[in-house]
């Protein structure tokens, strides 16, 4: 009931009220950025939050977020050089984001959202997440004195929980949040809408401009830390890519600091597995940073819990590479045994890619994996591999290129077999353009729409026009 009125809670009725629920739960009128056709004012939305990067730095310092250390991984670099041609093998660094209060970079995304919610008078925050973002929001809500509900997709229909997600629930509860756990399905967002409507809390969406703006400090810190330490900016920064906010925010922060490092997206290859499948839910060992999120969100950013996503990775990525589950587990073990750092596997996706990419680069160059994440029971190479085996996944040594998601996990028989496989960015650009032109008002694509699509995809005018022509034919 809202104000004494009976509210229709059917799926159709609740999702039909999405616009007004989100509007009330965020205080952002997304309609003002719309052109009425394909284009929308992305920079306008990003700049309208009222928080500059200086504000994000101030809020994050106030609530113990960021300013995380950079470590040079000398033994991993030496190992990469053993696999590379003479003279090749860039210095590999990692930014230890696990040292944020809740154990991941996601706290940069949570800090301003919770701060803003409090400033606007909301009593609590809600976030839809099975990942580290839940712990980040719960931690910030605890610190800033708001209530917190985390809604997560956690179990299959046999009530078997993904160990990594069960651990996240534990952590969120330890930080004082209510955790609402659901079985597999995209109706998670329906449950979130109901919670927002019932509680009147703030929608701490992963995809808001507050959240993605908060990640800009990560990129900015990298640029400044390398300038202070090495007297130069890094050559390549690798970002794990799922919803795209990590890459978008980091790249924007790098650019704001005047750093022109190449930005590479990295995802775990889960090709062939359906993310909404009950039976396949527990046959994957990575619940984020994988292609099941990375590719759909890159090519269609606006299918999240906000009308317009602030995470638009195709605007910022120079390359998109994939790595295999077996390779990320392998590099996780390498980080422990060769570098003395025990971290969560999913957070090492960018490191696995960096290890391979370093081998293409000169020895005096610098490559940075821009995150780590915390580890613990459930969220660790040992329980995740034990769980995979229990679910019938074969664990093998060999060439990870032959790994089949949902069937096996192949560890590299030798470190030289760990590869970063190139994804076809033009194909993703084409997919994004094709999808967006269906939204043209009265079927008319304006000059503003073309300029917008060029920005969305970092493509030339000719490329955009060519896709439009082919789509018409």
């Amino acid at each position, binding site marked *: 009931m809202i104000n004494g009125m009976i509210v229709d809670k059917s*799926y159709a009725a609740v999702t039909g009220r999405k616009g007004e629920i989100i509007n009330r739960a965020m205080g952002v009128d997304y309609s003002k950025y719309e052109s009425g056709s394909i284009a929308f004012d992305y920079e306008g939305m990003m700049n309208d939050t009222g928080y500059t990067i200086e504000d994000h730095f101030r809020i994050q310092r106030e609530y113990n977020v960021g300013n995380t250390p950079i470590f040079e991984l000398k*033994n991993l670099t*030496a*190992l990469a050089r*053993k696999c590379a041609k003479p003279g090749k093998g860039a210095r590999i660094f990692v930014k230890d984001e696990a040292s944020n209060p809740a154990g991941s970079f996601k706290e940069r995304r949570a800090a301003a959202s919770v701060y803003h919610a409090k400033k606007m008078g909301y009593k*609590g925050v809600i976030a839809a997440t099975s990942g580290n973002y839940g712990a980040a929001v719960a931690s910030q809500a605890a610190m800033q004195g708001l*209530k917190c*509900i985390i809604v997560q997709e956690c*179990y299959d*229909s046999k*009530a078997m929980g993904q*160990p990594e997600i*069960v*651990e996240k629930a*534990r952590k969120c*509860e330890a930080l*004082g*949040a*209510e*955790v*609402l*756990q*659901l*079985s*597999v*399905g*995209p*109706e998670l967002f*329906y*449950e979130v809408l109901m919670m927002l409507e*019932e*509680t009147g809390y703030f929608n701490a969406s992963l995809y808001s401009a507050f959240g993605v703006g908060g990640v800009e400090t990560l990129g900015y810190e990298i640029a400044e830390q390398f300038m202070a330490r090495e007297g130069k900016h890094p050559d390549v920064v690798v970002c794990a890519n799922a919803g795209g906010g990590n890459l978008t925010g980091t790249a924007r922060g790098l650019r704001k600091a005047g750093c022109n490092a190449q930005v590479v997206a990295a995802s775990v290859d889960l090709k062939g597995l*359906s993310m*909404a*499948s*009950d*039976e396949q839910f527990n046959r994957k060992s990575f619940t984020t940073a994988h292609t099941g999120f990375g590719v759909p969100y890159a090519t269609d950013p606006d299918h999240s819990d906000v009308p317009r996503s602030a995470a638009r990775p195709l605007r910022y990525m120079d390359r998109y590479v994939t790595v295999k589950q077996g390779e990320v*587990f*392998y590099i996780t*073990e*390498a980080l*422990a*045994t*060769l570098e003395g750092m025990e971290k969560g596997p999913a957070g090492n996706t960018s490191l696995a890619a960096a290890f391979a990419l370093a081998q293409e680069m000169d020895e005096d160059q610098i490559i940075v994996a821009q995150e780590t994440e915390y580890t613990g*029971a*459930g969220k*660790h190479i*040992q*329980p*995740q*591999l*034990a*769980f995979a*085996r*229990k679910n019938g996944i074969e*664990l093998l*040594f060999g060439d990870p290129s032959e790994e089949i998601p949902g069937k096996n996990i192949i*560890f590299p028989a*030798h*470190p030289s077999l760990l590869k970063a496989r190139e994804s076809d960015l033009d194909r993703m650009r084409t997919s994004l353009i094709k999808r967006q032109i269906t939204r043209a008002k009265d079927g008319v694509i304006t000059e503003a729409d073309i300029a917008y699509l060029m920005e969305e995809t970092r493509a030339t005018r000719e490329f955009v026009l060519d896709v439009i022509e082919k789509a018409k034919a």
Partner: protein
Amino acid sequence: MAKKNDYVRIHRVVLEPEERTGKLPEDTKKVPLEMWVKGRLVNDTAEIGDEVTVTTAVGRTEHGTLIEVNPCYELNYGSFVPEILQIEESLRSTLFGGNEA
């Protein structure tokens, strides 16, 4: 038996299979959307399997079937995976065990 104010875990079906969204894989379509949440018991007493009401951590009221009293985490590091040891040993010998690798 659970008493009022005991910390408990409940379970409820949110959407029956026929109420779910159409955009689902076939296997997911056949099963309901289920929910689990914890809170303090509102009922004076209840047994496992009873329909109960709880107050959650944020003070919301939720209802569902009582499935656990004093719910605990059973997370652990899983059974031993010998392959991990093999990775560790091969990495160390590749890097430190000479240049033959």
